[in-house]
Each structure stands twice: as C-alpha cells, then as structure tokens.
C-alpha cells in the first residue's frame, strides 16, 4: 500500500506535538513538518510554559478536560523522569491569585494538577489587592528546550523537516495527501480565518514587581514580544478542501491563545485520531 504523505505546517508546540503523535502512532504515514520559523523563533519559545488552562466557551467541557488531562499526564511523565532537564519539562509549584473571588472556585482542571487547594489567608496576606487564590503543583515546559527535544523524537520516528514558508495550503496539495494546519497566527492568512487575533501584554515588569518586590533587583536579560494566536475557541477539526478537482483533507489545530503549551499534546492526540479516522474512511472507500 502506498504510504500516506502528511504535511504538518508549523514548528511551534502545536506543530511538533501533532507531528510526533502522528509519526509515532501511524507508522504507515510519512510525515513532513514544514515551517519557516523554528525554535527559538516561534511564538511557543516566548511562553513561560506553565501548564494551566483557560476555559473556552464553545467547546464541550468533557473535551477540554480530556485535552488538559492528556497534556498534563504526558508532560508529568517527562518531568519526573531522567529526561526532565533535556526536554525542559519540570515540576513547578505556585499560586494563581485573583483580585475578586471568581464564580467558580474550582476550575475544571483542578482535579488534574497536583495537590490543588485554595490559598490560606496567611498566604494571601502578601498580596494586598487580591482576595482569592489557588495553590497547586503543575508542570512547566520551556519550549526553547522542549521543541528541539520533540524534533529529535520526531526524527527518531522517521519524520522529515523542511524549512520553507507556506503562503497557501494549495502549494502542498500536489505532494501531500493530508495537511495538518498548526500555523497559529499564520492561519489568518493561510486559511483566511478572521477569528484569529493577536494579543499582547504591556507594562509587565512594573506590575510584576508590585507582586514580587525582589524583582526590582533582578537583572533584565532580554525582552521578547510575541503575539498569542488567540481565538474564541481553538480550532481542532477536519475540513475537506475542494480545489481543482482535488478533495484534500486538512486537519486544523490552531488558535490555542495563551494555552498552547498547556493543550498541545491533548489536541495533538485529537489530531492523530482525526487522521486515523480519515485513513480508515479512505481504506473503506477503496474497498467498496
């Protein structure tokens, strides 16, 4: 049987996670990752990489829970193994503090992180303008180490990497049977998604120094500006694109906003299932 040729567009955390999931789970496919920017120049590289999730309004809660749990368990296994330093994935404990008490005191992901509890009054005392907080242990994933580590894993699974800019998905239709679109903000032009918008934060050092005064004594090593590929909801779904007589399946995995690191593996597993499903359909069609 001819090998199915898959192109994954994008070399950020969503791209490499998807590429690794597919290459490792579906050896009948040949997977090529195509991107113009690689670590340390991707959006993912600038992320702090703390795994905690936001809630998306239109995605069923069960699916969001599954994404989070799968991502967390995958990263936790790395964090407690000897791979931790190479992969840049470590355990990290901390606090999430709120100025007002939120309506939902226990977010959906609280059951998946470790040791989740509400902060005590004694702990909140340090943060005068904040009335509520969560304390928990989670994982932190530094993409400037994690992406090269994933790339290594991708290569070991037989994956190929191509550095080039894709201006139009049609460019890929001749050479690939299925496209996985992990182009983040690039989706705006690549697939004409007007729902993707960049989000950027300003005045960071001053606001953070008020929370943690010792930061005023910290040496600034560098600044980084990135645009989160935000969308009301991440787009993780299959689309069949009709072009010049071709029907090309495109599996989208973009729009994770500030939750890219947190959700990458979970959404990548969904992508892998969508690809597997599609291959199953094709096989069935071929037999009929």
């Amino acid at each position, binding site marked *: 049987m001819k090998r199915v040729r898959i192109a994954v567009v994008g070399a950020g955390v969503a791209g490499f996670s998807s590429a690794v999931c597919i290459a490792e789970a579906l050896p009948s496919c040949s997977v090529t990752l195509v991107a113009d920017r690689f670590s340390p120049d991707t959006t993912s590289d600038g992320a702090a990489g703390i795994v905690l999730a936001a809630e998306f309004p239109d995605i069923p809660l069960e699916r969001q829970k599954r994404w989070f749990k799968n991502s967390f368990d995958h990263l936790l296994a790395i964090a*407690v*193994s*000897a791979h931790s330093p190479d992969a840049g994935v*470590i355990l990290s404990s901390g606090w999430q503090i709120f100025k007002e008490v939120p309506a939902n005191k226990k977010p959906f992901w609280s059951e998946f992180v470790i*040791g989740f509890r509400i902060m005590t009054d004694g702990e909140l005392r340090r943060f005068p303008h904040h009335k509520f907080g969560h304390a928990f*242990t989670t994982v932190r994933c530094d993409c400037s180490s994690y992406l090269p580590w994933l790339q290594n894993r991708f290569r070991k699974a037989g994956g190929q990497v191509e550095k080039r800019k894709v201006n139009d998905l049609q460019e890929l239709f001749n050479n690939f049977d299925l496209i996985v679109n992990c182009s983040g903000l690039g989706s705006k032009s690549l697939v004409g998604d007007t729902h993707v918008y960049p989000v950027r934060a300003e005045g960071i050092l001053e606001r953070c*120094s008020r929370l943690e*005064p*010792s930061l005023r*004594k910290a040496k600034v090593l560098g600044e980084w500006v990135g645009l989160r590929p935000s969308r009301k909801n991440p787009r993780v779904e299959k689309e069949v694109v009709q072009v010049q007589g071709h029907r090309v399946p495109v599996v989208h995995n973009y729009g994770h906003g500030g939750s890219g690191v947190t959700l990458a593996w979970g959404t990548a597993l969904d992508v892998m299932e969508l690809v597997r499903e599609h291959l199953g359909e094709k096989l069935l069609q071929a037999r009929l």
Partner: protein
Amino acid sequence: MRVAVIGAGVIGLSTAQSIYQQFHSTVSPLTIEVYADRFTPLTTSDGAAGFWQPYLHDKGNIQETMWNKMTFDYLLKWLSSPDSIKMGIFLQSGYNLCEEPTPEPSFKDIVLGFRELTDRELQMFPGYKYGWFNTALMVEGKSYLPWLMDWLKERGVKFHHKTIKSFKELSDSGADVIVNCTGVRSGELQPDPDLKPGRGQIIKVDAPWLKHWIITHSNKAGTYNTPYIIPGSRLVTVGGCFQVGNWSEQNNSTDHKHIWEYACQLEPSLKHARIVEDWAGLRPARSKVRLERETIRSGASTIEVIHNYGHGGFGLTIHRGCAQEAARLFGQILEQKGNYIF
C-alpha cells in the same frame, strides 16, 4: 555599656543586631564589638543550604518552636522588600518524605500551605509511604551574613578578627557583657559535655531544573542521615549525613559516594547535574539550645555572660527568635546593673 559578642555566624551577628535594635536608643553609649576568627563565607552558617525547617519533632521544647515561628514570620515580612534576595531570602516549596506514617511536625502551623501528600505525589517517590508538602523559606547564609555585617557596620558595630581564649580575656579588656555565640567550639571557652559536633557533608551541584526541596526522613537512620536535595538561588545542595562526634571538616570520599548514590535514587535527573564542590561542616549539636545567662566569678569581680549556642542543624531556622530572647536577657542584666534609662 560595652558588649562583646564572640562568634560571627548567624547567631552572633543576629544577636548583635537584636541588642542594637532593642537598646541603642535607651542605652548611651552602647558599644557593640564582634570577635571571631572566622567570618562569612567561612562560617558554619555559610555552608548550610539555608533552608528554614526545624527537626520534625521538638521533643517538648516549646520555647524552641516559638523561636522558630518568630524567625519564620520575621523573614516572611522581608519578602515585601526588594532587598529580600540580597538578604538571601526567598520562598520555596517542597516535600518531606517518610518511610512510614509519622505524627505531624512541630512546624505545620508555621509554614505556608502545609498539607499531606496525595497518592499521586507519593508515586513520584518510590519507597516513601507518607509525607507532607508545604511552602517554606530559604535564608542563604552566604547572602544573609554579609547583609547582617553591613547592617551592623553602618550602625558603628566593630569587628575584630581574633580567636578569644577565655571570657576573662574580654572582661579584662573592658567588656561589661559577653555574648557567647561560638557554636560548635563553645567547649573551648567552657566545657560542655552536652555539646557535640554533628558533622555534615554536602555536594553543591548545578541543576537549575530542580525547583522543590526534597527532605527524606528515617527513624532508623536519624535526622539528616538520609538524602535531601535543596535547590538554592544558584546551586543545589545535596546531602546528607549527621555524624555525631566527628570533628573532621575535610571532605570524605566515602561520604560523597554514599550521599550521591542515595540522592540519585531519590531524584534520577541528578545524573545530568554538574558537580561543583563538596563541603563539610560541624553542626553544633546539643540536646537543646543553650540560651541563658551566667554570672561567672572571677576573683573579686563577676563576668556577665549570655550563652546562645547549640542550635544543631537549625541555626538559620531559629536565629531571630533566639537573638530576641538573648536581647531580652541583656535587658535583665541592664536592669540589675541599674543602667536602664527609661
């Protein structure tokens, strides 16, 4: 009033600070001088990891628990200052691991967010059946002691690089009160069979991915004789041992092998760590802290001594509480001498 403090570890310097703070505005003149033959970074306080945590159980020493709490609360307040890191103070969370269920420790209500470990967390540490998680403080001697010395120098406290051979030596040269903060070597000034060295050896490594301290406990092996891993502001301290009666300050290669092997079992990623150096120090171990006054007869006169030594492996943990108590004892001496000006 002339005060001579012997010892420039965390106990000597913080006691000098507390005496100054409590009495400089009411006692005039108040001359404070610190005598020591070892200063930062060569004191016992400098070599310690700088982790705030008392021994698990206080054996009824409620005063020590109170002094520990005073110290924790005092250090915690400093976190709101940008200088906290210059003092070597920062928060860090971590795990206390036990081989079997253990009664709750004396510090459970002092630290932040104390709780039992969940089953998932225990799975991360095979061989340990029980334990706790909490957020505690670090106070690194290598930063804290220089900060204290600067603080004292700015207020006119003088430092003398000298080995003091007897209390009389200082009293003869004019000291009205002597504060004995000589740690493990207190026996050289006054024999104390209860004071013994508790030798510890540690390995400092570069492993910046470690963000939690991990302390293991074993009733069988005894305090700090089982592995512990304590990340610091720059390097990670890996230990440990607690050898009572061993006066050697030299690094021992058998101890190194043993400590490293057990620590790597506890934290496998350590095998990627770069070893920077070993260090051995002598904890001033005693059944309880000696914090009390003594009036020593010397011929026709008396020498007023405040003892503040024997803090074992919890000197940094308890220092402020003890310093404040020592200052209170100093106040008692002043009242007796009729020097107190209200």
